[in-house]
């Protein structure tokens, strides 16, 4: 492998890792703060991708679709939290697993009724539809760089939100002691609703910006969900920082696994998880 193809793989793995981080951060926040295991989180990614597909063909612009889709996903998050998830906080994990499993079935089947089971492509917007030449033969698509840049900006915003704002303070407080926050007169239920909607929006957003690269297909939510579980397990449940590190690790392991040992490509990520579980059963970083 020469320097340029190595560089391309490296950029790919960082881009993949950052995308995973967007989905996994919501998953880990929702668990860390509300104690909810949400199997339906991958569905939000799927819903995002399908929204990008249908809204982009409706409005003619991916950017407009992303803005609209983000608003819609926040609404979806608020409604779901109000109708279902707010009743799950005191239930045991088994019931959370089942309810969110039921949600996946509902979402997948609704998707099949509304959009069908075909694989769809989403066009890359014209301004970003060119490649950065590296050598005479190799080049790198600008859209992927754009994705990575957007993810980095979002990760930074998330950091600022959690570490530097009043809402972030409430989120962190809620994660460590729910009752105390409540008795101090803060509206913890509102915090929960916001965090849930944020998680849904992040996952849907990831699905939307990934749509032109990964195409839009049934089952994409499940695939992302399980990889995100691996990310959360490696990073430590509830830890945003851990999710970032683990997502980048997974991005590297997956991309280079495919290049270096193509026979075992599907398994590299899980081997990494197994190794980390043996070494640190609680994940690399614990807690927010």
């Amino acid at each position: 492998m020469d320097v340029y193809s190595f560089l391309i793989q490296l950029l790919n793995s960082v881009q993949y890792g950052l995308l995973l981080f967007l989905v996994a951060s919501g998953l880990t926040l929702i668990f860390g703060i509300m104690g909810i295991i949400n199997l339906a989180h991958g569905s939000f990614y799927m819903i995002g991708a399908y929204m990008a597909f249908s809204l982009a063909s409706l409005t003619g612009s991916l950017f407009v679709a992303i803005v609209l889709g983000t608003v819609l996903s926040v609404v979806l998050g608020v409604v779901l939290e109000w109708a279902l998830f707010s009743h799950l906080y005191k239930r045991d994990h088994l019931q959370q697993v089942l309810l969110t499993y039921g949600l996946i079935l509902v979402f997948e089947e609704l998707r099949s009724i509304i959009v069908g089971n075909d694989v769809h492509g989403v066009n890359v917007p014209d301004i970003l539809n060119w490649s950065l030449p590296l050598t005479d033969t190799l080049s790198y698509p600008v859209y992927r760089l754009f994705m990575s840049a957007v993810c980095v900006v979002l990760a930074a915003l998330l950091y600022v939100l959690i570490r530097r704002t009043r809402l972030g303070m409430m989120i962190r407080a809620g994660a460590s002691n729910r009752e105390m926050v409540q008795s101090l007169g803060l509206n913890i239920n509102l915090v929960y609703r916001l965090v849930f909607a944020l998680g849904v929006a992040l996952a849907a957003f990831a699905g939307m910006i990934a749509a032109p690269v990964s195409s839009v297909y049934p089952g994409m939510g499940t695939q992302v969900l399980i990889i995100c579980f691996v990310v959360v397990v490696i990073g430590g449940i509830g830890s945003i920082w851990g999710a970032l590190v683990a997502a980048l690790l997974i991005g590297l392991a997956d991309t280079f696994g495919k290049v270096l040992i193509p026979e075992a490509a599907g398994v590299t990520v899980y081997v990494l998880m197994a190794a980390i579980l043996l070494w640190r059963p609680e994940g690399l970083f614990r807690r927010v």
Partner: protein
Amino acid sequence: MSRKRISFAVALALLALFPFAGATFYTELVTKVMILAIFAMSLDLLVGYTGLVSFGHAAFFGIGAYTLGLVAPKYDAANLWLTLPAAMLAAGLAALVVGIFVVRAKGIYFIMVTLAFAQMFYFVFHDTKFGGGSDGISMNFKPVASIGGFTPFDLASATHLYYFVFAAMLLVFVFLRVLLRSAFGRALQGIRSNEHRMRSLGFPVYLYKLASFTLAGALAGLAGYLSAMQFGFVNPEIISWHESGNVLLMLILGGLGSLYGGVIGAFAFVALQELYQSVTTHWQLLLGATIILLVMFLPGGLASIGGLFKRTLVGDADDE
């Protein structure tokens, strides 16, 4: 005799006489249900008695099934008495190895890690050629039950297969019941209700959990083997996480921690499935909605309906 025992005996008699009632279709359907019941009971050992919520139990079902697919000769029938233990052994071994990793994890971690490992097996069978890839393996012959030339029953007959599976289900039930009343089983239930106390009492909690995980895996492998035998093919979809989800659903439907709950749940699940499939091709929508309603309004499973009824009618006299 208590009412429970009577209903138990009636259910057993009904099942034992069922093939005489008629149609082969229903005999085969109930055979399938009883295989699922074995699968559900094996998961109950983990979820209901050891307190380990596994979302990857289909992996071991799949390994049991694939064992038959892989060792069965192409142009000849496999021997039941060799391949059946082999399938349970393979599934048990896989569960032991996976267990070494996952049993260290607790609660929500355990759920995620079991799911991830099951998915790994799914990819192994789906992406590599040795298990036939995404097409899986078809078997042309049902295993034969011959011991030194003597063949006590013929598994190619739907009725014989029915009784073989029925016997297997009863055996698993009795085995688990005896096991759970032994010191080992009591220790597992102790771990479920208070792990810290068991640890401070000096129980090697990790080993107990690992043993339970391995045993549950081997029994799931038995169910998988029987299923592969009944349908004559295996493919990676039997390891998909939908299967792990469905078997958890069966347990919840029938009620956790009672063994026969798994049996009731398997029947309820297949009945629901058949009903919804007859209504619409988008039956998963109905199934999903049912699950959501079940968790929201009936968290104790179908078995709790009676109690619910009593409470609303008579008032809260006895707690369950």
